[in-house]
Every structure is written in structure tokens, then in C-alpha cells.
């Protein structure tokens, strides 16, 4: 790990100003990803601004604005606390399930909600500084494109980067249509829809998301929904715990009897961002909730996948996982708040 300066602060605005003073500084929250990357010499900040003392941890009902009757989660709250809070377990069991499907209990106890959104890819070519990687070192090429890319993207990748974004939490947030509140340089708050928050790699894979330098995630807002009773998160991985998704699916069904009023489906492990299954959602809207319709929707969604040399299996697996998640959602959330 390279030597660095350690600074701490107690207000969001002061934190933003400190970061502004040093172009090589980074915010430090839970540190479960950043410190690992510093030890690997991938991230090389010369100053860490500790933001863990900021008052951004509360979970509360929203009473005004567009997300009124929804729930707000503090950007610096711990993943564990978000997953286990009564407001979340009762109204957004999908989020609880997704968070608990990620990492390990120890990591979730340290990791923050805002930090989770800013997780970097787990692509091993990104982690290995001897390897080419446009995300780590723009212009060096993509090691995974012609390398070992079993874990990599099947949607939305570019010639510059085939990495996937690893968060489970964000896949649920995508299906829940959350918005991310961010404090800008001027101290004002702007709101970014979760599905606009992460980017596809295009020509700039080094940019994971649309945050401007110096912006700080203050909270995540979950709008009210009516599919808490019919939600499921299915994560397919190489072992039963503590592994990143090969494919994951967050699904929620708003039902009127056996008719699907609306379906909310997002996928993880397939793209540089949580992948909204918009085609599947469109097909299912207004249809009856049957296995045949689930399969039709899943196959349509996966029909435009562009797999790489080692991950062709993700297409079929994606179909199966969407069907499985929808079937589980239809049965009813297997979860007591």
C-alpha cells in the first residue's frame, strides 16, 4: 500500500471541500473495497478523507416530495442495518434478500450503502496491475476480452471493457426504481435515478457511474411499491455463499388476481450496470402469470445477449433464472418481516 494522508471530518459539506482541495484524495467509508484495491496497488489515493463520522446513517419514512410514502436510507448506513430494518423488511423484502445474498456477514457489517453503489468490478484483469485494463489504466486494452471471461458481460459491453458491476443490492434497487441523492460541489442535493446512475463502458470504462468528482452520496430513496408480497431475488453462483453472481435476478410482480399489472425485473452479473429487463417487463404487462408467459418474456429478454468466449452459458442461465425468480415471486415472497 502506498503511503497516504488520513483526514477526517464531521459534515458532508466539509468533506466535499476537503476532497476538492486534493485531486488525488478519496472518500473512505466502510473501506471493504477501496482498501483492498489500495493493497493491490489498483487505487492509489494519497489522501483518504474519512466520512464515517458524517450523520448519514438513518433509515426513515419519506413524508414529502416525489417519493412520499417511500423510505430513505442513509448513504453511510451499514448494509446489515439496511437489510434488517423493519421498514425495509416489511416494505422492500427484495432489497433485504439482495443485500443478504451479497458478500459475507462480516463485510456487510462494515460496508455502507453508498459504498456498495460505488463498488468496482471484480474482473481479475482489473485487479492485476501487470495486466492490460482500460478501466484501471485507460488505453492499455482489455485483458478479459480475449482472456478468461466466464464471469463477464453479455449485455452492453464495448470493445474497451467487458467487465460486470458486482453489486447485489443495486440489482434490487434497480427493480425497485430507487433514486440516489447526491450532494454536489455547491452543497445542493441532486437526485439521480438508479437506472441512470451506473454507466455502460462505451469508450470510457474508467467511469463506472455518472457522479462528478467531489459529489457525495447522501441517501437512497425507495419509492412506495405494491409488490412486497410478490418479490424474489435469485442469485446463481459457483458456491452457495460468498461468491459473485454468474447471473442474478430481482423480480417483483404487481398482480391483479392472476393478471400481471406490472413486472419489475433487473439482472446482475450480466452488464456493467444493473440490467433492467425492459423487454421482459413489457411482454409480461397485462398478461396472465403463467410459466409459459414467464418463459416467453425471459427468452425475449435474453435474445439480444452478446456472450463472450467463456460465458455463452449465461444466456440459457439468464432465461432459467428469470423464470425461477418470477415463479418464486408469483408464489409469494418467502420471507417474514
Amino acid at each position, binding site marked *: 500500500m*502506498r503511503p497516504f494522508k488520513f483526514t477526517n471530518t464531521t459534515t458532508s459539506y466539509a468533506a466535499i471541500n476537503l476532497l476538492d482541495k486534493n485531486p488525488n484524495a478519496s472518500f473512505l467509508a466502510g473501506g471493504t473495497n477501496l482498501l483492498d484495491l489500495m493493497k493491490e496497488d489498483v487505487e492509489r489515493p494519497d489522501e483518504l478523507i474519512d466520512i464515517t463520522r458524517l450523520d448519514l446513517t438513518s433509515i426513515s419514512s419519506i413524508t414529502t416530495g416525489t417519493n412520499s410514502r417511500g423510505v430513505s436510507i442513509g448513504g453511510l448506513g451499514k448494509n446489515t442495518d439496511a437489510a434488517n430494518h423493519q421498514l425495509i423488511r416489511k416494505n422492500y423484502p427484495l432489497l433485504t434478500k439482495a443485500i443478504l445474498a451479497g458478500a459475507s456477514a462480516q463485510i456487510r457489517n462494515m460496508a455502507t450503502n453508498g459504498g456498495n453503489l460505488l463498488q468496482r468490478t471484480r474482473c*481479475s484483469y482489473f485487479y492485476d496491475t501487470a495486466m492490460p485494463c482500460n478501466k484501471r489504466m485507460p488505453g492499455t486494452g482489455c485483458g478479459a476480452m480475449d482472456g478468461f471471461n466466464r464471469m463477464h458481460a453479455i449485455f452492453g459491453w464495448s470493445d474497451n471493457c467487458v467487465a460486470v458491476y458486482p453489486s447485489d443490492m443495486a440489482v434490487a434497487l434497480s427493480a425497485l426504481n430507487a433514486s440516489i441523492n447526491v450532494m454536489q460541489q455547491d452543497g445542493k442535493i441532486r437526485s439521480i435515478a438508479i437506472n441512470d446512475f451506473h454507466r455502460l463502458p462505451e469508450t470510457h470504462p474508467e467511469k463506472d457511474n455518472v457522479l462528478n468528482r467531489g459529489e457525495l452520496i447522501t441517501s437512497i430513496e425507495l419509492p412506495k411499491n405494491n409488490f412486497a408480497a410478490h418479490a424474489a431475488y435469485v442469485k446463481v453462483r459457483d*458456491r*452457495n455463499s460468498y461468491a459473485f453472481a454468474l447471473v442474478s435476478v430481482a423480480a417483483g410482480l404487481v398482480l391483479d388476481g392472476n393478471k400481471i399489472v406490472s413486472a419489475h425485473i433487473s439482472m446482475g452479473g450480466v452488464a456493467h450496470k444493473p440490467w433492467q429487463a425492459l423487454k421482459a417487463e413489457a411482454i409480461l404487462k397485462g398478461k396472465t402469470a403463467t410459466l409459459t408467459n414467464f418463459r416467453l418474456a425471459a427468452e425475449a429478454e435474453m435474445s439480444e445477449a452478446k456472450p463472450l468466449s467463456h460465458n455463452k452459458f449465461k444466456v*440459457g442461465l439468464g432465461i432459467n433464472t428469470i423464470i425461477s425468480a418470477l415463479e418464486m415471486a408469483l408464489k409469494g415472497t418467502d420471507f417474514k418481516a
Partner: protein
Amino acid sequence: MEEKNKSIGKAVNRIDGILKITGKATYATDYPAKNMAYAVLFKSTIASGTITNIDVSEAEKSQGVLAVITHKNAPKLNLKGGLRGGALLQSPEVYFYGQHIGVVVAETFEQATHAAHLVKVEYQKKEEKIDFDKLAPLAVLPQGKELADLIRGDAKGSIKEAAVKVEETYETPIEHHHPMEPHSTVAVWEGENVVLYNGSQVINGAQTSAAATLNLKPEQVRIISPYIGGGFGSKGGQWANLVLTAVAAKIVNRPVKLALTRQQMFNSVGLRQRNKQKISLGATIDGKLISLAHETTTHTAVDSEYIEPCGDCSKIMYETPNSLISYRVVPMNIILPTYTRGPGKSTGSFALESAMDELAYKLNMDPIELRLKNQPEKDPSNGKPWSSRKVIECLKEGAKAFGWEKRKSKPGENKIGNHLIGYGVACGTYPARQRDSSAVIKLNRSGNVVNAIVEIAASDLGTGTNTILAQTAADGLGLSMERITVKIGDSNLPPAAGSVGSVGAASFANAVNDACIKITNELLVKSNKKFFVRPTASQLMISENINDFETRADAKPPKEAEQHSAHSFNANFAEVSVNVYTGMAKVTRFLAVTGAGKILNPKTARSQIIGGNIWGIGMALSEESIIDPRWGNFATRSFGDYHVPTNFDIGKLDAMFINEEDKIPNKMGIKGIGEVGIVGVAAAIANAVFNATGKRIRTLPITPDKLI
């Protein structure tokens, strides 16, 4: 001594359990030394070539740095000293990706790590040999004579006449040992002598190889290793890091600590190589084997040969008039493979026992029945009688305990919700051997209380050596276990075999037992009395008013062991559940039934067996390391990519032992259980997956993509 007062055979707790869970057991890096400096290795980023320039100037100037050691300034070491894997900084040549090319020594670990990042290296690359799939056709006969083709009858000819045949190739990937304690050393020089605190499965082997490599006499090197945080073969032979710590300490003239990082563990201390195993089975229509061929193709390092003996199980498991065991090997620019839990047998049994399951399916026969039909009376490879062989009992009692009768013979018929359930069985074996070991017993009496110290340069990987030696000495001396102090893990103690190849318990315990018998005999002579009932050493110390007495025994394996074929055997039963949508498989139940002679301590023995089973579950379902053939690096480079099982991956595990009295392999009847626990496990699981899904997976691991 009355049976009820004996310690051996009782499920006693580990005598060092409290020390371990309270953090008081001292592992290599726990040894404090005044004025310690910290060393960090840095590694090559090519697989083959020559270092043309290595610029350490920036690293040397970095804060806290005491020395940067590369091939340019390293002292001359003996490359043939017995260390494994080269990488001793003796030349600019690079033979594999991740070879050590230098060491930074600094005041702190962090400073050394940082400085290591500042070293700039230029290479002249040579063409690498790293793509095993492309190189496998070029494989040739190994140099090792024990791996020459073993031919009985005519396997290739006779299979043509077989009514039913299985001819398939089974592949296993590179696996890593990854013990919980990464390899680490503290080196402290005392004049011309050096003390090396270092986790070592073979204490005397570590001593002699370190000494020879450093151009010292063995007595100038002392290895201290009372506790080891696992090794699984990777701490059997020693690797460059041991000696480079001593070199660093000499150069900076201070004690030095060097611990490998988890990432460095991938390419510093050996690995289990990839194998392609072709099995050809021919049988009569009623299931009698007439032909068995086991042909292994594998790889080794470019400068040294190690091949795991995948054909070993096939030599002895089944009766067949025609048999062929062969090996072909190709050198590659990759670290030297090495002994990895159940070397050859864990991987070989996956191939053989999967093929037997395939044969049973083709014969429409229960796989247990097929195995029972082909049991050999004598060792088919050499005609020697078995010392004992309890395969039939393992299979029959295991089937009963596991509920084998509930297995559906047709695959895919046992479905619960979205899960397919399957049962699988597979057998395994591992040789039982005793190796030369010596032990000293020191008795001390204070009034009517006798205490004993047992000294032997044995090792304890975490398996329970300390405990079984205390049990052995307690029974041998007529004392309770609390009166025994066991001293192991120090090369200044009487020399002993190692905790390798399942020889540890038999070698160490027999040495201690011999010492107990000898000390009792010597006390009897000293007493100059005749006793109607033979007294214990403890009783003699008291009755003869002796304050201190000691003796040493040099134990050797019995001669008759050589006239027999002595092995542990097992039968493994697996139940798996496979999600029909996601392809995720879970081993919901596993039972290992083992016939391994005398079980000294059922509690630590059970831990050994289920530990092997868990390795086997990882081997079957998740462990695989991938090399990128463009560079020779591991694309799987952390525990995020290399998936050892988690608690959640493990269902209900059970271990049963078949009662087996067999004093032929050694006086105490110990066969050893360190390796056999993993043998047959992967095949039992793969066979269960077939029974569940109808999918025969011949390439491990069985990840979800292979089952959808």
C-alpha cells in the same frame, strides 16, 4: 492397565485446543524477536525469459528500506539443496509467472510492500509453454522410474472382447492447497547458526534442505514449528521463501519475518496439476472386469518433475486379468506441482470411480454390487496378501447407514419441488506406512506423582499429533494424560518422519510406544525384581524410588510389513440436490466409512475425515484455477475467484470407522487417515449428480454452467 483407564481409542479433546482458541498457540509469525525487520517478495510478470534490467533505485530510497535483494546481489545458494520450486534469486532466468525475483527488507511490513511496488523490471521474453490443452499431445514418458508403464496381461487387446465397455477421459483442474496459515518464516541468526520459525510438515526435512541450500551443516540450522495452520502437502517439501528469509536476515543482520500474501500463495508453494485421465474398462455381461486401463496425461515444471500418481487406486481396487497404468508428462512454464491432499488418489479415484459408475449404469447394475463383484483376494499389482482390507464392510455398512435402498436407479426420477435429488457411491484407498522415527521419554517423580516428557521432532498440522502422542504415552507409561508433556516441532528433538503421506500417526506413535516399552523394560532391569503382573513405568518409578529416568527408542517399521500390501480403504456416500433452474448443486448429506486400522482418537479422526470430505466437496463442485495462456498468470488470483467451500456449502457430514485389528503394518495397528478422507469423495458426488440429473460431468469442478 485396565481398558477403561486407557486413553487410546477414546474421543478425548485436543490437549492444545484451549491454547489454540485463546490465541496462545505460537505459529511461525507469532515468535517475537527484538529489532525485527520485515521482508516482502516481489515476483515476475512473465512466464519465460530473462531479466535484462532490474531497477531497484527508487525502492532502495523508499522510507524504511534496509535492503533490496535480487539475483544481482543474492549470496550463492545451492540449487540442489532439496528445496522445491527453485526461485532462489540465483540467475536472471524466469521459468514461470510469479517466480520470486527479489525481496525487499524494511523496518515495517507496509514499507516493504510499498517499496516492492517501486521496483522496475525489464525482460527479454521467450516463448512460453503454458497452454496445457495444446501441449498435452506432446507429453512423454516421465523420468521417474516408478511411473513407467505398468502392464499386466493385455488391457488394450482384451477390451475389444468385452461385452460392455467404458472408455472416457476425466479432467481435473489446477487446485491450490491454501492452508489457513500462509507460508511464513521468522529467521534469527545466532553467529553462524540460524533458527527458522516456520510451519513444516517434515521438521528434519526442512532442516536438511534449508541447511544444504544455505551451504551450512544441518546442525547449524534449527527448525521450530510446534503448530502449523494447515499444509495439505504444501508444507511437506519447503520452498524458496524459507531460505530467502534466512538470506534477508543475514544481509540486514537482524531477525526478519517473511509471510506470503494470499495472492502470492497461488504461485509460490506448488499446486495440484491438471490431469487428463483416460479410463478404459471392459467387463463381461454379468459385471466381471476383464480389462482396466488408466492413462494419465499431465504437466510438470520446466526444470523439475513432480507427477501425482493418478493410477495408484486403479492398481489395487479391482480384480482384473488385464491392466495398464501409464503416465505421460509435458513440461510447462508453471510452478512445480507438488503433493496435494491425497496426491494421485483423490484425482485418480475421481476418474476410476466415475468410470465404475458409468459401467454399472451400462450394466443396469447397482454400483455397490458391481464393486462387490470385483474385489481382489490379493493385491493385483504385486500378488502380495492384504494386511487387511475392509472395502466390503465399508460398502455394506455404509449403504445401510446411509439409506442407499432409497436411491432411484434411474436418473432424474427423484424430484422435490425445483430440486433433483441423487445418491452416489465411490471407494477410495491410501497406503498405510510407518517410517523411521525416534522418541525420548523423560520421567520425573515427585513423591507419588510421576510426570513424563515426550520428545520427538514430529509435526502437528492441526490434525491432533500432540493429542495422540499424549494418549500413547499415557497408556504406555501407566499415567493419565494430564501427566504428559509433549514436545514436538523442533529439529533439536529426536529425528522423526513427517506429517506427510499419512505416515505421521503410525511413525510418531510407534516411536513413542517403543520408547514406553523400552523405558519400562529398563526400569524393570534396574529394579532387579520379578513381578507377577508387569508393572507400569510409573509404578516402577514410585516403587523403586527413582527420581529421574529417561530413554530413547529408534522405531522402525516391522519387516513383515513388506511382505504384505497395507492400505486404508473407504466407501463414500453422497446425496446431492440440484436446482433445475440454476444448476447449483449442493451436497446435502455425505457419509464416509473408513477402514483404517486402529483409530487412536475418534474425535480428531472424525475431524480429519470430514476435513478431507470438505476438500473433496470443493474439488467436486467449486475449486478450479485458470491460467491465461497468453501470459501464464492465474486469472483466478484471490479467494473471490478461487472458490473453496463455505459453511453454507456443506450439508450433513458423517464419518464411520470399521473396526479393524491389523498389526502387520506396524505394532500399534495404525494405518493413517490424513489422506484417505478425500479419496473417492469427488467421484461419489459426481455419481450422485448423474443419479440426480442424468448428466455425467467428467470435467471438474461441477459448476452451475455444466448442469443447466
